[in-house]
């Protein structure tokens, strides 16, 4: 990799995908976390 531009294209692209996935994963995690609240 020779230019900052190439580096940023690579890293920022990955970051978007990773962050988006993590956001989606938060929903099942939240549900898993609070699942048993209702039984109380």
């Amino acid at each position, binding site marked *: 990799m020779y230019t900052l*531009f190439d580096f940023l294209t690579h890293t920022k692209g990955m970051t978007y995908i990773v962050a988006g996935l993590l*956001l989606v994963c938060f929903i099942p995690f939240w549900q898993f976390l609070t699942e048993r609240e209702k039984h109380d």
Partner: protein
Amino acid sequence: MSHSTMTADSAAEGRGGLLTPFNLITGVILAGGAAILVLRFVKGLAATTNLTHTNPWGLWIGFDVMSGVALAAGGFVTSSAVYLFGMKEYKPVVRPAILTGFLGYFLVVLGLLADLGRPWRLPYPFIKQAGPTSPLFEVALCVAIYLTVLFIESTPAALEWLGLKWWRKVVGSMTIALTVLGLILSTMHQSTLGAMYMITPTKLHPLWYSAHIPVHFFVSAVAAGLAMVIVEGMISHRAFHHQVQITDEHFQRINIGLAKGAAVALATYFAVKVVGLAMEDEWHLLLTGWGGWYLVEMLGFVLLPCLLFAMAYRERRVLLARLAAVITVIGVMLNRFNVTFVVFNWDGAPGERYVPHWMEVWVTVAFITFAVVAFRVIANRMPIMYEHPDFKGMH
């Protein structure tokens, strides 16, 4: 169809059929706008705009996109307040605010379609080739998703109108998730709109350029959103008075509460701007010509409405809050115009200054008119200003 909707419909359209003065004026504005847009796609941007190679962004970006997004911030601000922070008394303004937000973002897209060189390629960043280093890519991504979010958030009114109870329940169960998503997306793209200017330290006047410009944009958008909710309420409560269910006293209490929020938002905005001056040591610039213009913006359109809002809250004066809201809305628009084309290229730029072409102004006015008409049509039919009797207490 409920009883109240029927009254609303008949009240709005029963008088004098289609040939009301309102309809005539809007018709002329919309037809003119359509004609100009046709010209734009036949003769090119050169025929309808005053854009130059040096000033490639003009009114369509400065108003439709930059101001439009900021003024549509009321949607996420009110829905977050009600659904995430439990301020239930503001619920009556959430639906109109979300509808305003949706229409605002729709305007942004319309403006972009007019302004882009090849508008049919608008989805290219997502389907053809992404440019993740671009702040504009981030804005596009957020706006696209947020527009969808706003659409879903405004469907309950339509579903209630259509009586689709099951669907209404499904959407209702998503409220919290949608509100969180809306807040995330808004924080991101409201600030990134400002970040778009971080690459132009040589072109944007240093009083407006700042390493904190994303924060400036976000905080001012919160203030603009709150002010816009007050302004929109002021107009719609007069226009749809017969639909409104809440008492005048409740509505005034909401306005006063919004004024408090707006006062704090504007004070915060003023503070971060002043901190920006200190951080980049720009005090001496205040004594230049552009510094005077900056002071007009900061004192006349930030500090003044902030103090007016504060007074309105202390003394419970709704009219004063409305005056402050109007000043705030104008002030945020002024800021976006400044950044986009007034103090942009302030020094050393080749060629002449950009002044919007009358056709650009017309198209912008036509877009606003379109949004107003859409709001009217929707509010006349769907439960926007009131709670649907069959769905009372749901969210």
